[in-house]
């Protein structure tokens, strides 16, 4: 299950952060997302030769915490997507696919003329679309 999803701007500011848990651990998830920005920095600045494609948007698993897995995605416009999930056995392909759908939703959201670039995304439509994607992710990995 996806527990948290965040869009982080190029100044490392949260553009959109949403947790999907019942419990009161939003703040903890914020911290996980925030710390994972360091991993993204490290990974982008010192790319390892072993990584398959050097500038792919999908960054893969950022780091495992005891109960979560954190995945990252960096767009060409230096916007970071961070996904926190409790599924410990998860396929990269699923995450990749999820991010692609999410990216499309994000692009539509920021193309809204009433959205000011670099500011928090407050569109309700975006929120609804994201929760649909998040739900479908749970389904596909379960099947």
């Amino acid at each position, binding site marked *: 299950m996806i527990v948290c999803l965040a869009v982080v701007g190029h100044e490392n500011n949260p553009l959109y952060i949403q947790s999907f848990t019942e419990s009161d651990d939003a703040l903890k998830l914020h911290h996980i997302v925030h710390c994972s920005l360091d991993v993204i920095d490290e990974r982008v600045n010192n790319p390892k030769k072993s990584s398959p494609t050097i500038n792919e948007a999908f960054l893969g698993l950022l780091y495992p915490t005891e109960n979560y897995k954190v995945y990252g995605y960096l767009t*060409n416009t230096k916007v970071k997507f961070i996904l926190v999930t409790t599924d410990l056995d998860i396929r990269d392909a699923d995450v990749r696919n999820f991010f692609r759908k999410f990216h499309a939703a994000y692009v539509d959201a920021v193309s809204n003329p009433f959205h000011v670039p670099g500011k928090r995304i407050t569109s309700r439509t975006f929120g609804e679309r994201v929760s649909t994607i998040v739900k479908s992710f749970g389904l596909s990995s379960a099947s």
Partner: protein
Amino acid sequence: MVREVSESCVESLLAEIVLSYCSGFYANKPELAARRIEAIGFQVGHQLSERYTMDRPRFTDNLEAIKFICKDFWSELFKKQIDNLKTNHRGTFVLQDNRFRWLAHMSIDPSVQASGNIQDPSAMAENKSAQATGMHLYFPCGIIRGALSNLGIECAVSADISNLPACSFVIRIKA
């Protein structure tokens, strides 16, 4: 889902933007009008670059980003690529479109607009038609600047229409 817009609509819209800003809102403040039109272009470029870079790997350097503007970005906007790209390798790029669409229906006396550099309003003041054309160029300049800015490249963009119908956009990247 591909959304398409009629070309003539875009052209009319651009003309209307220029008209309303230059002779409507800021009739006696051309710099302010220019700034607003550029800002509109900036946001459009910013948003378009978000969309058009969606499926590509991240750019490693400035040249790659500029090439993207010349090829894919320009193709999306104008169904053609930039015809000529020049650079001094120190952060200045000149993008020349031999037949810039948004100026295609613009008629300018070719003898007087030789010095039509829109970043220099004082030179423009002497020539009304060049000034009017210049106003139409703030929007595409803003688009380029917005697109590059979103790709992490802060720059200044100016346009040169000294040999119409070709139009050159000069990009100076801030060091």
